[in-house]
């Protein structure tokens, strides 16, 4: 539909032709625009190694391939332009009254607002991992681990005596199996995660936390190992990434729900890893 065709169809009173044109514009560019935003964001995240901020690695190839196919169709949609099917409006329905005009304006405005929001949120904002706000909203260590598989993996690593290789996930899995202090007496933990205050005793205890992702970030569950360090807020902020080394002991905090906690020997600030989630 060319601009000339638009002007030919314009009359003081809205006609079926202009009504069809409005619907055509709203329907056509809404889908193509949103698809464009999604496929570009997906391909860019894949190319820069950041898809893991949003989805599980098992979907990387499928997602990238389908985004590539989507990109082909999006570009083709610009190349093949259809006419608005203005003649197909059902007979007997008014097209130029205020109600119809209002709905049409609402549809156009809604489409424009949605496209603008999508462009800003999906393309404009830098990719980001989930923060402690979501971790606090979801109960830490309340789920997310395939306990059997994680416990087997942790047990294998414990068997080697190489405790430095145990991550937050393995330690949480072991602690879920047993909280007998004697079992952890001779073991030093060296774990990396973000700082998450213990809701029960935020002044003295924080978690070295990670999110476990099963399919995508929406199902992320926070897990963490408790660290006893009174006054930690003076040195670290919530959401800071740290590497904590220390030994396990009975948690001195009477309010914390965790019976064991790490007494840190060192707490080093570290950069957020490129793959912040665990699987």
């Amino acid at each position, binding site marked *: 539909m060319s601009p000339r065709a638009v002007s030919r169809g314009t009359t003081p009173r809205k006609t079926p032709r202009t009504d069809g044109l409005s619907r055509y514009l709203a329907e056509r560019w809404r889908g193509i625009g949103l698809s464009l935003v999604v496929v570009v964001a997906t391909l860019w995240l894949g190319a820069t190694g950041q898809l893991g901020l949003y989805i599980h690695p098992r979907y990387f190839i499928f997602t990238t391939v389908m985004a590539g196919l989507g990109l082909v*169709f999006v570009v083709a949609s*610009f*190349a*093949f332009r259809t006419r608005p099917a203005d003649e*197909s409006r059902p007979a007997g329905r008014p097209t130029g009254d205020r109600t119809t005009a209002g709905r049409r304006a609402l549809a156009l405005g809604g489409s424009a607002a949605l496209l603008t929001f999508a462009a800003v949120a*999906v393309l404009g904002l830098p990719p980001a991992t989930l923060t402690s706000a*979501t971790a606090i909203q979801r109960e830490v260590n309340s789920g997310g681990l395939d306990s059997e598989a994680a416990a087997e993996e942790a047990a294998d690593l414990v068997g080697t005596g190489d405790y430095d290789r145990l991550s937050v996930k393995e330690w949480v899995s072991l602690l879920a199996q047993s909280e007998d202090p004697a079992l952890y007496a001779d073991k030093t933990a060296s774990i990396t995660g973000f700082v998450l205050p213990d809701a029960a005793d935020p002044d003295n205890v924080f978690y070295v936390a990670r999110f476990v992702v099963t*399919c995508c970030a929406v199902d992320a569950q926070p897990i963490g190992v408790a660290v006893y360090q009174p006054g930690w807020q003076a040195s670290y902020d919530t959401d800071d990434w740290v590497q904590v080394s220390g030994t396990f002991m009975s948690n001195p905090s009477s309010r914390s729900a965790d019976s064991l906690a790490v007494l840190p020997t060192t707490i080093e600030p570290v950069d957020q890893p490129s793959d912040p989630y665990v699987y």
Partner: protein
Amino acid sequence: MRRAPTGLILGVALVAAAFAIRAASPAFAGWGVPDRAQDTITLALSVIIESAPFVFLGILLSTVVQVWLPHGFITRFLPRQPLLRRACISLLGMFFPVCECGNVPLARGFMVGGFTVPESITFLLAAPILNPITIITTHQAFGWGDGILLTRIVAGFVIANVIGWLFSRHPNPDSLLTRTFSASCAVPGVSGHDNDQHEGHSHPPGARPGRIERSVDLFTRETAVIMPALFLGSLIAALTQVFVPRSVLLALGSNPVWSVLAMMALAFIVAVCSNVDAFFVLSFGSTFMPGGIASFLTFGAMIDVKMLALMRTTFTTRTLVQITALVALMSAAAGLLVNYVA
């Protein structure tokens, strides 16, 4: 439809501009978005990036069915006995796994091609669940645990066939359709078959577009319907996750009855595509009872705000109210059965 090289140039330029904005996005890191707003966007984007490939796949398969296969290719092999015929129709989704959005134009094409109204309803309700993509993704999310996948498959088959049978008893099934359905489609040009002219479409003789152009046109129209729903659904899901206290969900989720009703209400509002809804509801797996999850996966695949809007192009409001009530009752029954028996 006509070729427009300037359109191709414009499209490539817009894609390049989008990549440029995306590449420059780290420079906007100092915008200082609050954590909760940032997490809302991250969560919504994760659902969109996870779901969009499946949506695209559904549209592409829908295009193959509607544009590239001969018209009537499917219906010629179906049995004539009504019950058996509807049972077979409810399994058609196994061969054509389009999502529920793509099923609406497909079902209209089936009716024009000889399906009765109850048969079309049976297909519409069953196909979103009884298709390989939905079954595989549900299995990836839940496995066979808690009977969630089995309940979804069995309930999907039973509900679709019971409702199809009930409407087959209607003295005048054609009255279930909107008056204008046979003369026009509220989503014009969706079907790519040669029967378009029967639906009031306006391709002049000798000017019919080729299959590739019709495929692209179908992609455009389908994404226009599905993508906004995907964005809004993802945003609502993210807002729910960030702002509704988990304690509220826990309180609802641990009750055998409330877990079912709350999850059905959530399914109706969120309107996530059945191909990927298992991923969405997975995060509620540790919060809600299995019956609530099963009800979400059964009811939401058949009925939601987006599907009702699409189905209204074909069926009367009265019919949709009846279908919704029946699906809700039977989905709730299935969920309660899981919670109390399984």
